[in-house]
């Protein structure tokens, strides 16, 4: 990578301003095209048949009656998606999740699919498919599944990460451990110890737009996929591998996205749509219903976490320990591992140990959800930290400040921190007016900290300068939160032109080099680095063209504020040439002017946030209302502050829903009971207060502008901040998320009964 990513401490003209987003008008007028808004001539309607059983052997599938139904053009089962994964276990799991091969592993698991001329015919065809199941015992609870007598979901799974391979298979796929020091010694030095167990229920990202795609496979092996995704290049790789297509012949275009939050980071139904199109010889549109999104896309883990923290009388934490069990659905994952890494990341600890267990259950395949796994670990740890502060008689913020990690601290997951923002967020919270506002009866205040890694990845960008001097910026990271605006600001900043002269688009997979997907809070971090690099490459060409126009050596040309400058007294009579001047002459100075960049954007800066929350709890009904909420978070550099604030508010809003209402509820039959927004209640505007934000800017030394990721960290503290607020309001420590009214009433009753 011939690009210096180091922070330069420059002053900004465009970056840090708040222009209107380029996709805004289309979105508010309904013109923006989402996954289900695209159509192809002659397209069919795809529908998927799903298992009604949580765990069952598929003995046989008879599709003959469905195939004979007039209007049905294709019926497929796992036989139409043969295993081409060549030993890649993770891809095999994705394939099996797209279409069950031997067993249905959860309620909603796909077992067959049809393509028909209309939705009615497709639904009728599904009813004509006969599946002979042998129903097996199932398990949906993470703690029950980890027991040795639990029904086995995969008898080939032997727990990894143990010193010796276990003699028997189990649902625990992996044990991981992090930490340093000696926790036994640390606890022996403690004057106070808090030890508690916590649970969090499974939640869905709750994106408003369901998964949707239109797939078209041609007889010559070329194919097109229009799809709602967080990463169309990754979807291309997955689909090409699973269907045996050449990646270069599969053109994937990402639609606008109505939310993803990690749930649209790998394929769910897209290979099915392509397989149906290949068999039918016509395009196929496949749109999940909300019921299918809940039952068969990828929610986050349910968890069970034990925490133990000890401190001396002076408030110094002497040891911290956590055991974390995370559900993975029926396929192996690394969700507890991430929880174990993030759990104590906010603190400076001499003795710390975390152990994670990945647990298979008969629920949908777990997917990433915004700072995956960190919110649940933070809930457990920050609840225990609050309780320990109370036992010590210390203010909750002061206790955290005393123990906060700093530059040079060895993190609980291993490496030593560079410049970080946990201390500044805590100091900002300590002096925030919110902390001093009076509370009324039945109200409580809580605060909590959160951490997320952030990361970068493979990134490719094209910057093309038109002959009129306007700039097209083609990026490959899907815009999930306003990145077209922020990347246009970066291009304008680097070129020295006005924001209104830059138009950013998300290019399809045939128009640009490979890009990793938009996850890990990397969209603006990575693509801004590539945009800066591309702009600098374009400036080299602009300087060369200016030198031609002046007939002077290019070494004598500099670039300042959007203009080529001939430096030196001998060129005193040469007026600067603007980008527009140079672009207008490009046809006769060497042709089109463009800058290209392909790089790996590594070195993302870790991110911290501290949240404050006030709640009011009705002691008669157990209903909780959030009455005030404040987010303080380090952004590194806020490229477009309005969208940074939007990310902070969005994370808090999702966290409020997770903390108070949202949960997957399974019946004894292993079937999901609340697969719809009426029964799975996410917050709406009237449930939320105005969420105040405060942006801190502690520059990331590994980005030219100091940018860190901002999208995920904001969902890490809310579960804990709200739990601490509710606990303070009702006088009982809340240990089970969501804190729904029945759960709060039960906790109050248990307290009364002693």
């Amino acid at each position: 990578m011939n690009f210096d990513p180091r922070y330069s401490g420059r002053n900004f003209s465009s970056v840090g301003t708040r222009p209107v987003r380029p996709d805004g008008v289309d979105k508010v007028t309904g013109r923006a095209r989402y996954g289900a808004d695209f159509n192809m001539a002659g397209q069919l309607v795809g529908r998927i048949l799903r298992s009604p059983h949580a765990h069952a052997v598929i003995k046989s599938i008879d599709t003959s009656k469905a195939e004979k139904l007039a209007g049905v053009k294709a019926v497929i089962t796992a036989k139409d998606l043969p295993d081409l994964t060549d030993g890649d276990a993770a891809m095999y799991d994705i394939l099996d999740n797209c279409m069950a091969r031997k067993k249905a592993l959860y309620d909603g698991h796909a077992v067959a699919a049809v393509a028909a001329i209309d939705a009615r015919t497709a639904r009728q065809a599904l009813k004509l498919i006969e599946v002979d199941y042998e129903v097996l015992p199932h398990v949906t609870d993470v703690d029950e599944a980890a027991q040795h007598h639990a029904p086995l979901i995969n008898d080939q799974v032997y727990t990894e990460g143990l010193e010796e391979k276990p003699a028997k298979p189990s649902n625990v796929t992996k044990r991981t451990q992090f930490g340093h020091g000696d926790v036994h010694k640390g606890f022996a030095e403690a004057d106070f110890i808090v030890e508690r167990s916590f649970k969090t229920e499974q939640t869905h990202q709750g994106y408003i737009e369901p998964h949707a795609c239109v797939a078209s496979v041609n007889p010559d092996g070329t194919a097109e996929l229009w799809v709602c995704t967080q990463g169309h290049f990754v979807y291309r790789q997955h689909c090409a591998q699973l269907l045996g297509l050449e990646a270069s012949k599969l053109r994937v275009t990402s639609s606008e996205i109505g939310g993803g939050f990690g749930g649209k980071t790998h394929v769910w139904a897209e290979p099915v749509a392509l397989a149906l199109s290949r068999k039918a010889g016509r395009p196929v549109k496949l749109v999940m219903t909300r019921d299918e999104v809940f039952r068969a896309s990828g929610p986050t883990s349910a968890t069970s976490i034990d925490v133990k923290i000890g401190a001396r009388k002076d408030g110094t934490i002497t040891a911290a320990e956590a055991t974390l069990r995370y559900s993975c659905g029926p396929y192996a994952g690394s969700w507890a591992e991430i929880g174990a890494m993030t759990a104590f990341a906010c603190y400076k600890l001499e003795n710390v140990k975390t152990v994670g267990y990945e647990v298979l259950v008969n629920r949908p395949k777990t997917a990433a959800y915004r700072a995956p796994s960190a919110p649940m670990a933070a809930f457990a740890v920050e609840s225990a930290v609050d309780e320990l502060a109370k036992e010590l008689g210390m203010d909750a913020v002061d206790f955290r400040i005393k123990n906060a990690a700093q530059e040079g601290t060895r993190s609980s997951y291993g490496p030593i921190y560079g410049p970080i923002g946990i201390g500044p967020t805590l100091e900002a919270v300590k002096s925030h007016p919110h902390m001093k506002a009076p509370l009324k009866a039945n109200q409580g205040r809580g605060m909590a900290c959160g951490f997320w890694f952030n990361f970068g990845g493979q990134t490719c960008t094209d910057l093309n300068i038109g002959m009129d001097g306007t700039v097209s910026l083609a990026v490959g990271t899907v815009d999930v939160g306003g990145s077209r605006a922020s990347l246009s600001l970066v291009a304008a900043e680097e070129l020295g032109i006005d924001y209104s002269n830059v138009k950013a688009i998300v290019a399809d997979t045939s128009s640009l080099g490979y890009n990793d997907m938009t996850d890990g809070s990397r969209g603006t971090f990575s693509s801004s680095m590539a945009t800066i690099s591309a702009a600098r490459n374009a400036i080299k060409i602009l300087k060369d063209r200016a030198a031609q126009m002046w007939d002077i050596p290019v070494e004598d040309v500099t670039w300042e504020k959007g203009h080529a400058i001939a430096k030196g007294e001998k060129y005193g009579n040469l007026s600067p040439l603007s980008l527009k001047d140079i672009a207008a002459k490009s046809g006769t100075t060497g042709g089109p002017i463009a800058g290209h960049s392909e790089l790996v954007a590594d070195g993302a800066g870790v991110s911290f946030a501290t949240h404050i929350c006030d709640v009011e709890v009705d002691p008669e009904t157990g209903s909780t209302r959030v009455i005030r909420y404040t987010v303080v978070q380090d952004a590194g550099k806020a490229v477009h502050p309005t969208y940074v604030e939007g990310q902070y508010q969005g994370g808090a809003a999702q966290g409020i829903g997770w903390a108070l209402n949202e949960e997957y509820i399974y019946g004894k039959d292993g079937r999901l009971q609340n697969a719809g927004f009426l029964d799975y209640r996410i917050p709406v505007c009237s449930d939320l207060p105005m969420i105040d934000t405060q942006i801190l800017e502690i520059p990331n030394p590994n980005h030219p502008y100091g940018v860190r990721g901002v999208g995920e960290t904001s969902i890490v503290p809310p579960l804990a901040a709200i739990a601490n607020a509710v606990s303070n309001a009702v006088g009982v420590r809340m240990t089970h998320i969501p804190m729904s009214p029945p759960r709060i009433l039960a906790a109050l009753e248990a307290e009364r009964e002693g």
Partner: protein
Amino acid sequence: MVEVTLWGSLSAVAGGKAKHEIEAKDIRELFRKLAEQYPGIEPWIDRGIAVAIDGTIYRDTWSKELPEGAEIFLLPRLAGG
């Protein structure tokens, strides 16, 4: 020569040792030499290992040089949302 620290689970397939002295100029050479010494690490490298150099995490830049005396820490390659 750099000192490399492996996270708990990875050290289990590297002779049970968390700290290793390796002669490697960059991440690519580090992975190659670790795999030569401990073949059990190879599947882990295939699945993804991130390398923290003085606290900065690198996931894909295998050409990144390992400065003498730097703190090198191997971590799982993470998923994000």
